[in-house]
């Protein structure tokens, strides 16, 4: 057993909630507030894990399965993500397709759990979630396919740890397009502005938060934690692309990686502070734009 392969996953499991808190601190900075402490997400999780449960009379076992499958999917996704030059726990050719489909599995059950409550708000959230996910899927696939061709490697670990800084000189435009497409996918998949507003408390405008209105206690903790894991997984891909630092010492590589993760969260927070949520009808244009960026990257790579 190669213990080094467990490090990226363990780091993700431990540190994922921190990203949310960096985003929140950034938003607080822009708003002129001090913001919650960095460890606030952990306090929230601990509080939620200690609570009892209220379940709706309408629900069935599907409702209870939703958070569990969602969390399991997020953990499975994390097992495929390399970090700081270290390979992931599981790495094999075309594992990025498995990555996308395991994400889908979690989403499918979250959506079903939302529909299980019979609430119009949750139905609305579920409908929008599948709408945007279906459009984000081609962008994700095309972007990852472009990366696979670029690095002549088929597994996520191979792609991301084989990346050299020199590649940016050589294939800069294509890489930049891929990063752009993946950033949009990250915003959409993690329900951030401009696709969805995690802070809104008007049910009609919520997507992800709308879907989980009826979850509480341990279930809600699972949902929030898996949202953190998903954010970590997609961020790690982007950071490994943007900062392919290979200083030679694991400590330096890891420091660069973690700094990159923090920087990306600041970027997400900045986007959230400077933009309003797009009108729902405009979001498809954004996602199709990401598809176009990824397709363009693919063409540039093949040229």
């Amino acid at each position, binding site marked *: 057993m190669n213990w080094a392969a467990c490090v990226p996953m363990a780091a993700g499991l431990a540190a994922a909630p921190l990203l949310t808190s960096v985003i929140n601190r950034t938003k607080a900075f822009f708003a002129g507030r001090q913001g919650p402490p960095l460890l606030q997400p952990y306090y929230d999780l601990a509080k939620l*894990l200690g609570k*009892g*449960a*209220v*379940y*709706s*009379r*309408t*629900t*069935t076992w599907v409702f209870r399965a939703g*958070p*569990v499958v969602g*969390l*399991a999917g997020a*953990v*499975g996704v994390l097992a*495929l993500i390399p970090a700081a030059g270290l390979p992931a*726990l*599981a*790495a*094999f*050719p*075309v594992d990025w*397709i*498995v990555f*996308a489909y*395991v994400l*889908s*599995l979690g*989403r*499918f059950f979250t*959506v*079903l759990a939302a*529909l*299980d*409550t*019979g*609430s*119009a*708000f949750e*139905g609305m959230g*579920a*409908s*929008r979630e*599948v*709408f945007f*996910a*279906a459009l984000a*899927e081609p962008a994700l*696939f*095309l972007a990852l*396919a472009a990366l*696979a*061709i670029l690095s002549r490697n088929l597994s996520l670990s191979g792609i991301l740890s084989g990346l050299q800084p020199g590649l940016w000189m050589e294939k800069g435009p294509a890489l930049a397009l891929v990063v752009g497409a993946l950033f949009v996918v990250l915003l959409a998949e993690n329900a951030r502005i401009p696709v969805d507003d995690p802070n809104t408390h008007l049910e009609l405008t919520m997507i992800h938060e709308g879907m989980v209105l009826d979850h509480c206690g*341990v279930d809600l903790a699972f949902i929030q934690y898996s949202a953190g894991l998903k954010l970590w997984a997609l961020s790690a891909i982007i950071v490994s692309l943007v900062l392919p630092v290979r200083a030679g010492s694991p400590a330096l590589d890891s420091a660069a990686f973690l700094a990159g993760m923090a920087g990306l969260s600041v970027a997400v927070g900045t986007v959230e502070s400077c933009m309003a949520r797009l009108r*729902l009808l405009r979001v*498809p244009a954004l996602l199709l734009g990401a598809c176009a960026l990824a*397709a363009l990257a*693919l063409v540039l790579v*093949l040229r």
Partner: protein
Amino acid sequence: MHLILVSAGVILLGGLAALSVRSRRWASLLGAGSAAAGSLIGLVPALRAALGAPPESFGFGWPLPGAALSLELDPLAGFFLAVTLALSAVTAVYGVRYLQSTPGERSLGPAWFCFNLLVASMMLVLLAGNGILFLLGWETMALASFFLVAFESEKASTRDAGWVYLVATHLGGAFLLALFVLFARAAGSFEFEAWMGTTLGASTGSFFILAVIGFGTKAGFMPLHVWLPEAHPAAPSHVSALMSGVMIKTGIYGLLRMSSLLGPPPAWWGGLLIGIGLSSGVLGVLFALAQHDLKRLLAYHSVENIGIIALGLGLGLLGMSSGSCTLAALGFGGGLLHVLNHALFKGLLFLGAGSVLHGTGTRRIDDLGGLLKRMPWTGGAFLVGSAAISGLPPLNGFISELLIFCAAIFCVLHPSSPGIVTAGIAAVAGLALIGGLAAACFAKAFGVVFLGEPRTEAARGAHEAGPAMLIPMGALAASCFLIGALPVTVVRALGPLLNQVSGFPLPDIDRVLAEAAGIMAGVGSVIGIVLAAAAAAAGLRAWLQAGRSRETAETWDCGYARPTARMQYTASSFAQPLISLFSPLLRTRERLHGREGFFPKTADWSTETRDASREMLFEPLFNGARQVLGRMRGFQHGQMQIYVLYVVVTLLLLLAVSLRAAP
């Protein structure tokens, strides 16, 4: 081969016996029992052949000119036969209880006779080694399934559906007839063996087009699919399962058989199938999203899945034409495995829809809701089928789609020609879109039908199906899991089949399959992590929640105190964002009534999506044909003397022509 003949004999005799008895009960038991027993007998040699037993043949002459009773069991036929027989056995068992619950005192003998005849004729189609024998089987299959579609013939909609099916299937049949006659003329015989290696020269391409149209009509390629959304909902559910699960696959089989007889494929054949596959896949799932009838939705998903299969086969043909064994093995492997997978999960879903219809009396998605509490087993099975058809791991649909993805990525990574790269990119993006849309569609289908609160009294009073219907569904659900759990074994078993289809040597194919099996092992490890995490999370929650307060309450409704079931999202509202985005393709009609004045009291909104190719292609075509042919009606008076005059005039004309031609 002898076991196959025994199996066909049992099925046919059982059908005849069912026809001859009077009691509904005995007809069902005889028909279904013989169909199931015969299928199980035939499954043994079929599986053996599919897994690489040496091909067997059987034949003797026949007084009909050109025809011979020659049967041929090779890996390709064996594979399709195994799929057909497995699903036939399961659907026959399900059908016993399902048909007995149909209202009225109608005799069931004819229905079972047709069912068994359908199974036997599909066997004949798959085994035939002679063109005339093949066409005989093909026509018998079409007629037997027509009578099954028209089973509830007292309903006007059913008669209409049967009529559409009959016309469509004969249109396709006409193309096949032309193809077979032309091919036989070129080869000098109707024997497939003689066709093999016949040099056709320039006409090869047109023969392939004829095969695509003829077989594509049966398989349901867009835009030839018009009969599927009519016939599948009208037929009894176990027949829909059989037709959608395996009968339409005889079109895929025919296409594969014909392309192997036509010789080495040029690249454009692959490109054509990829194009058909992508358009069928994307449009099939979009039209499915817009449907309100559960079985009609499933029928459109058959179009989508046939598209995925065609995509795989197209990539395989590209591999053959470019001499790449890897591409051929991955493409054909994914496509053929999807044939099996689709038979399993679509069979399961149609049986599930049948149980819903049986338990509530309606197929309208928007009239249902909350069925999971009333029909827990049916709901569970339907959920398994929904996840499988959406291509979600750890179920079987994911395995075959992953193989096709691999083929598409191989195209992009090894760009031997611009066409191959374009095909690869289109296939990756298209499959990703299809996957996302299919998940959306089945979230809608399962969510609106089985979750939430019942929307009508019919749904409130639903009852679970009996064990005779649940056990077949359970068997199909278990096999979806089994293939998903053993992908390495399944992928490795495809060797002999792919060797025959692609023509590449077996050791090369086994090398590709070993690589694919390595990927599948990786998939297995990720699925293992997911399952372990799920178990851990469920255990943690149970441990944490033990001894704490656990209440039940109303669903949160923002403080509104009297929520009703009518406030729930419906199938129409759930799909609305996607439908309106793709409205140029779907041309959904919306109707809004009663939103007038300053204080409108009641209002209702409904959508209807008619089939675009039926409205824009076939209806103008048929209306045009009717107008042209209507003019000919003037010749028909029903008066004998005038008909005699026609004969005399024709004879005189022929005489004149032959006199001129003679020296």
